[in-house]
């Protein structure tokens, strides 16, 4: 059984709605933010590694100057 009679009662929660919804919103926002941020780091690491591998195949030294710019993204 749902604890509320109507959808508007569910939103309002007898005046406590804003408090409750802000918390649930923050929770979803921060957790999905963590997941997305982790994925973008994964992609950055993979991109950089593919680039290093390509450079190596082309005969350039593995530690090209661009490695320094990558340290700013800070994969570790």
């Amino acid at each position: 059984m749902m604890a509320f009679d109507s959808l508007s009662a569910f939103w309002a929660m007898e005046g406590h709605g804003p408090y409750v919804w802000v918390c649930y919103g923050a929770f979803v926002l921060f957790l999905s933010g963590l997941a997305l941020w982790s994925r973008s780091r994964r992609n950055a690491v993979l991109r950089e590694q593919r680039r290093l591998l390509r450079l190596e195949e082309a005969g350039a030294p593995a530690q090209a100057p661009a490695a320094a710019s990558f340290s700013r993204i800070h994969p570790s």
Partner: protein
Amino acid sequence: MWTLFHKFGSPKWFYGMANKLMPWLLVLGVGLLVAGLVWGLAFAPKDYLQGNSYRIIFIHVPSAFLAQSVYIMMAVAALVTLVWRMKLADLFVRSVAPVGAVLTFLALFTGAVWGKPTWGTWWIWDARLTSMLILLFLYFGVIVLGSAISDDKGSARAVAVLILVGVVNIPIIKYSVEWWNTLHQPATFKLTEKPSMPPEMWVPLLLSVLGLYLWFGWLACYRMQTEILWRERRTRWVRDLVQEGGH
């Protein structure tokens, strides 16, 4: 025993193992979390004293619970780093410290928002709230210290020492509601006693705690894999993996 220990500590073995575990952790974790939260939000009965604001408990308690558990796990990993110099332990610490910080922040934030309609104030400087704030600063310290030292081994040891010193804060958080007078209510779950809530309230809470744990397990595996891909980038197996377009 020692061969098992070394196998377990090998990043390559961990990478493959994590790949197998992660789909389960993600599906089960998100499933339990959604079930627990929807139940708590819409179906659990309202609290006779606090009204509907108590529904914040279904995210406040899991966040706070995990914020402390993550710190304890980091402390165990820190010990392993110092004693056995296991790479994987330091990888774990680096990967989960930001997650722990976010969870601690969420616990503080939802606590403040819950405090307003319940206690009439967003914040008080009492023992429970202050010790949680210190936990947040400890997480920040671990993250900053780890990135400030460029030498991998040196920073692993420095971070491990900081974490172990900070462990003293954990029992303070736990017992703060018993040692000092506080507005904060006592622990919701105790291992030795039956919960003081009816099952329609504590079952969804338990589901969301378990769900968040499993979800954290997934995220920790994923972030550790990324960390492994970077730190082990010069090894044969990582090169092959990257070249195959692996994930």
